[in-house]
């Protein structure tokens, strides 16, 4: 029997596995986390008395449905939680779990690897107390902790408003929400945003809830710095046509939307393309998620669209894999799924306008600002390396020269900023961005394992 391996047990991976589990194929679901859910449906650690119904509000029904489905699906397939897929090579996925390495061959591979926060470096972003926006939510849902008592939520993302509402519901204080995109751009994006009316409605609802609670919301501000010595103590920002503001806090949740985790797709030989709307690289796929020979990409790991779209794309990818393997499924309404994903593309254009990636900021940051937090490489060091190449250096050359992007996170957090610095130096403000190449293992492995995993 053919074996289909699904990487990731979030909304896309579980939806794909659900379809696959009802066909005559062998299904394995590999997930780095100990519990299914991904980031979107992350569940509390066992024994944590966190009232998810209260925390999620209207989102609880979808959460509950997901976890019921996931429990059922995971009991029917070869489900391997706590397992890192660190590479793809020779028709096999390479896994590491509890000190042991294994290779798992596949006939079809469904990558549902999700996304992480996209970050523009800013002075003070490495200070204790500054966390990603997604991380601030993950810590609350998984561990029942807030990142601080008085939190500034900032950057540009629909998740700013969701995270702020969840922190208030959990008993935290929100010092301010600072959205770096202007309110006028949000209005301009409305026609495209209407392609996903439910998401839009939820967003407006969250903004209204924050205003009712008296939370200060600042639109269109530039974030100048996160200030502090051993811990962040304030955010300095400049609203449009105003003097800089200093907002006291003891923690910051920061992010500019999401960037897909494309590392395994790249190692599996999929082509990546620069998506002009999202301003990031995504795997090249057809509408069903076909990304190469026997490789399928679903969910935010392919195209950022949120949990609902992820589940739809997971079902489409599973149906495509089954069809290509010669197995049939009647469970998936392909046309409805494709129509929904096409609407999503329009919605994404809206999102990219309403929550702008502030690429130009990279050109304004002081030389002393840390760009690569793993290797402590500054903007100045990167600019000096670019100058040596007469102002036009490809990011992988800059990486080799400066170690920017060479650290343990493999450029997940400095990569987008580095691409902007390189583009600004090369005077290519509107064009395509460079991309750091990936290497296996895509995350650090314990040294004890290294001897077992040399291919």
């Amino acid at each position: 029997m053919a074996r289909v391996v699904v990487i990731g047990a979030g909304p896309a991976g579980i939806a794909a596995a659900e379809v696959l589990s009802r066909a005559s194929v062998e299904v394995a679901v590999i997930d780095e986390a100990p519990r299914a859910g991904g980031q979107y449906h992350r569940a509390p650690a066992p024994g944590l008395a966190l009232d998810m119904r209260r925390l999620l509000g209207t989102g609880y029904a979808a959460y509950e449905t997901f976890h019921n489905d996931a429990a059922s699906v995971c009991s029917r397939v070869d489900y391997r939680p706590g397992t890192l897929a660190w590479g793809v090579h020779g028709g096999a996925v390479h896994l590491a779990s509890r000190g042991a390495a294994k290779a798992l061959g596949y006939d079809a591979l469904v990558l549902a690897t999700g996304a992480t926060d996209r970050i523009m470096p800013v002075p003070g972003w490495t200070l204790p107390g500054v966390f990603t926006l997604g991380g601030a939510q993950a810590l609350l849902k998984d561990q029942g902790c807030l990142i601080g008592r008085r939190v500034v939520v900032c950057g540009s993302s629909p998740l700013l408003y969701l995270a702020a509402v969840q922190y208030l519901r959990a008993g935290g204080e929100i010092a301010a929400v600072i959205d770096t995109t202007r309110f006028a751009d949000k209005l301009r994006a409305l026609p495209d945003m209407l392609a996903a009316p439910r998401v839009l409605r939820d967003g407006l609802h969250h903004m209204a809830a924050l205003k009712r609670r008296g939370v200060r919301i600042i639109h269109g501000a530039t974030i100048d710095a996160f200030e502090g010595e051993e811990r962040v103590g304030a955010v300095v920002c400049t609203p449009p046509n105003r003097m800089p503001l200093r907002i006291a806090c003891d923690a910051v949740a920061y992010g500019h939307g999401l960037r897909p985790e494309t590392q395994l797709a790249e190692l599996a030989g999929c082509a990546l393309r620069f998506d002009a709307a999202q301003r990031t690289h995504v795997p090249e796929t057809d509408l069903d998620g076909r990304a190469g020979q026997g490789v399928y990409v679903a969910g935010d790991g392919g195209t950022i669209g949120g949990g609902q779209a992820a589940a739809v794309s997971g079902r489409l990818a599973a149906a495509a894999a089954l069809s290509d393997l010669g197995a049939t499924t009647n469970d998936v309404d392909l046309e409805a799924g494709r129509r929904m994903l096409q609407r999503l593309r329009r919605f994404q254009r809206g999102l990219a306008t309403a929550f702008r990636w502030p690429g130009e900021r990279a050109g304004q940051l002081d030389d002393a600002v840390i760009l690569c937090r793993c290797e402590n490489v500054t903007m100045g060091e990167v600019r000096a390396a670019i100058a040596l190449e007469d102002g036009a250096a490809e990011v992988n050359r800059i990486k080799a020269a400066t170690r920017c992007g060479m650290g343990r996170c493999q450029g997940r957090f400095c990569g987008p900023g580095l691409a902007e610095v390189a583009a600004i130096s090369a005077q290519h403000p509107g064009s395509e961005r460079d991309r750091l190449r990936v290497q296996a293992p895509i995350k650090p492995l314990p040294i004890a394992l290294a001897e077992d995993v040399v291919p």
Partner: protein
Amino acid sequence: MRETVVASPMLFRVASFDTPVVNLTVDGRSIQARRGESVLAAMLSHGGHVRRHEHGGAPRASFCLMGACQDCWVWIGAGERARACTTPVADGMEVSTSPTVHGG
């Protein structure tokens, strides 16, 4: 350089664990946590950072909290490395924030 985690707690707990207490040490200092807590949550419930950066010594308290940024690696016991945000606490665990202090 021996660096102990002594600062006001970073995190604000809003939901508690109804699980057994576990005792662990961070750079030789005893702290208590509950089964189910991550090493990171336990450390930042008792202190203000996770480690000092190997270049320059600036304090770091992790960043992504979901196993992506790799900014919270610590040493457990006699030199095993672990990512604090995705490693659960265990009774008797000895956590070190720099390689020179492991094993006490």
